[in-house]
């Protein structure tokens, strides 16, 4: 199937359209809120919350007795929030560190959820439960009503983000200072946390407990590399998230035996990998290029300063000298001399060289800069 056919199919096929829309929305909201998690150094909180939601889902089923997405959501939300607060309680009240608190809540809640799930499965109406999908996610079960819920939550969190933009930004950057300005930081904090839990809970049935944290982190981590502005980072993260959803759904819909959740996560991982390497200025590739360029420049600068010392010995700094003189000094080559000539720092005449005005000033500048740096 060609790409064009697939795009037509997305617009005409009801199920595929629903799933694509759903995963795109989910990716967008996760990218948006994940940016906050990444910047607050709470990257693994998402993982803990998604695991902590499991017993809530199971309990909702036990109490309510029927398969109903809405009750599952409420159950997951309550137990996710409970887990979050317990993590905060453990780190605040005991000497246990945050990583232990995260691991504890993650595994203990999940284990308890497992106990409940297996208990439910032994009951009579077990097959109707369909709880398995919360473990690994099943995008295929997305229904139009789910998409509406996702759209609603995305819309509301977008509105709140726009409304409290200034407050979010300053809290993320400098919480203590925010307090001195008279803002109630706890209100902002609770807003952010609640929406994060909500997004995670919504994502559970699509990508599942295990992979949920990647949906939050990957788009944000990728987006961070491309920009130094918070709002651009959030927009790019939302776009990356949505694209991961759309592309992942596409790949998994057109291939056999590829479940949607893992494919979406891998697409997001590709975005991360690509951004880590190719992002301008922060990316590893450009960093390496810049590093090598600097090293070359440093070499040229060194040669220039040696030439400057030699030229200073003569009254007229433009007086030509033999290239051989430089032989005592390491680190120059024909190539680097040629390069210096193209920079118009020196002029080459056969076996002779002489500094130009430009080269002389450059050398003086370098000399001063060096002294200033030593001053620091």
């Amino acid at each position, binding site marked *: 199937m060609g790409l064009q056919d697939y795009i037509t199919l997305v617009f005409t096929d009801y199920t595929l359209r629903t799933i694509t829309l759903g995963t795109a929305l989910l990716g967008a909201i996760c990218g948006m809120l994940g940016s906050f998690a990444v910047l607050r150094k709470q*990257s693994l909180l998402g993982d803990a919350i998604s695991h902590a939601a499991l017993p809530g889902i199971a309990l909702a089923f036990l109490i309510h007795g029927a398969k109903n997405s809405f009750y599952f959501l409420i159950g997951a939300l309550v137990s996710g929030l409970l887990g979050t607060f317990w993590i905060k309680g453990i780190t605040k*009240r005991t000497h246990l560190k945050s990583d232990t608190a995260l691991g*504890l809540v993650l595994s203990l809640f999940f284990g308890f959820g497992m106990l409940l799930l297996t208990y439910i499965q032994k009951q009579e109406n077990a097959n109707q439960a369909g709880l398995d999908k919360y473990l690994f996610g099943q995008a295929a079960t997305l229904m139009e009503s789910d998409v509406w819920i996702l759209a609603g939550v995305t819309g509301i969190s977008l509105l709140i983000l726009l409304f409290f933009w200034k407050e979010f930004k300053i809290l993320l950057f400098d919480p203590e200072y925010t307090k001195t300005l008279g803002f109630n930081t706890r209100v902002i904090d609770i807003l952010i946390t609640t929406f994060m839990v909500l997004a995670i809970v919504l994502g559970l049935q699509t990508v599942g407990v295990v992979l949920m944290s*990647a949906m939050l982190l990957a788009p944000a981590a990728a987006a961070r590399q491309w920009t130094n502005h918070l709002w651009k980072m959030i927009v790019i993260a939302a776009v990356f998230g949505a694209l991961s959803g759309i592309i992942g759904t596409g790949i998994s819909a057109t291939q056999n035996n590829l479940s949607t959740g*893992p494919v979406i996560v891998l697409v997001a*991982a590709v975005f991360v990998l690509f951004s*880590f390497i190719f992002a301008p200025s922060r990316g590893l590739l450009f960093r390496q290029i810049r590093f090598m360029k600097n090293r070359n420049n440093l070499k040229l600068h060194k040669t220039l300063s040696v030439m400057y010392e030699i030229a200073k010995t003569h009254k007229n700094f433009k007086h030509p000298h033999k290239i051989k003189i430089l032989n005592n000094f390491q680190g120059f080559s024909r190539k680097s001399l040629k390069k210096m000539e193209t920079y118009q720092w020196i002029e080459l005449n056969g076996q002779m060289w002489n500094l130009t005005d430009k080269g002389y000033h450059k050398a003086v500048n370098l000399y001063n800069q060096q002294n200033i740096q030593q001053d620091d």
Partner: protein
Amino acid sequence: MTSAQFEIQLIASLVAIACAIPGTFLVLRKMAMISDAISHSILPGIVVGFFISHNINSPLLIVLAALTGVITVVLVEFIQKTGLVKEDTAIGLVFPAMFSIGVLLIAQNANDVHLDVDAVLLGEIAFAPFDRIYWEDYDLGPKSLWVIGTILLITIALLITFFKELKVSTFDAQLSAALGFSPAIIHYGLMSVASVTTVGAFDAVGAILVVALMIAPAATAYLLTEDLKKMLGISIVSGVFSAIVGYWVANFLDASIAGSITTVLGILFFITYLFAPKKGIIAVLHRQKQQKIEVSLLTFLLHLNNHSEESERHLDHLQDEINWQRGTSKKVVDLALKNNMITINNQIVSLTDKGKLFTEEAISYIISNKKSEIEEMKSRFFLFRG
């Protein structure tokens, strides 16, 4: 109790011990979440090992999976070093990607692979007794017992051999480097043990619950003791206790054994979290309340010591300027009176000689930053605590 039941409990107990040992060090080294990352990312290693050996119990599986675990750690550290993202983000990026690769590998080869992601994540120890090893016709017992038993023996041998090095490098990495133990070797050694243990345990209790068995007993022990050997001991005991009790609870409820063991671990931790004698939150809250009154008392005495003028030493001044509520100030004054540190004449408070001595000693201790000695001093001066 049937022999199958006994074997299940034995395997579960061995898994608990094998997890508790590396778990203790992971918790102390603030690397608990690494165990979560390892437990997920070994999946592709297991799958590839299975492709090659076509045998779920092949040692190759364990080797490859452990290797994947170490690769995960290296990858996480590499990403951290680039400085592109923060440390925890690096963990959160690597393991879901690895896990996804594993899931897709299984799905792509569903016809050849009788591996179930459910089984890897959740485990099924109930089936362990049915997969046995025979030598000629002689029944040597369940395979998982041999696997986890071997891993446990190696872990214990390593623990005993390198106990000193582990201890020093955990509590003081710099000293350890100075003494010539490379922190890197111990670090990666520990990571390897954690990986191997995770692999050995996953088919019994599942990958996620390995995390519970590593972290929860260690965290419980951490709240009960400050001694490394005791901490290891308590971790092991609470792990084994949870394994056995968890088994019978699961038996009773007819539910997942792994889930049940974790739940017992959770309850055990929760009880410790509430009631641990020194570090439990009830004890902490009680101590904070006591200390709050006692620090208030010290403040009050210091205030009296600083101010000779009567207006500053009037009882009403406590509420006005020191800004205490009526209840607090009454408690403080009562405590000071009970301990013979002040006398009150006409609403004017004065320090007794004992009060003066106490205050001056307290000041000198606090200024010289020997705050721990204040506790010792308090017990010398106080007849009644706050």
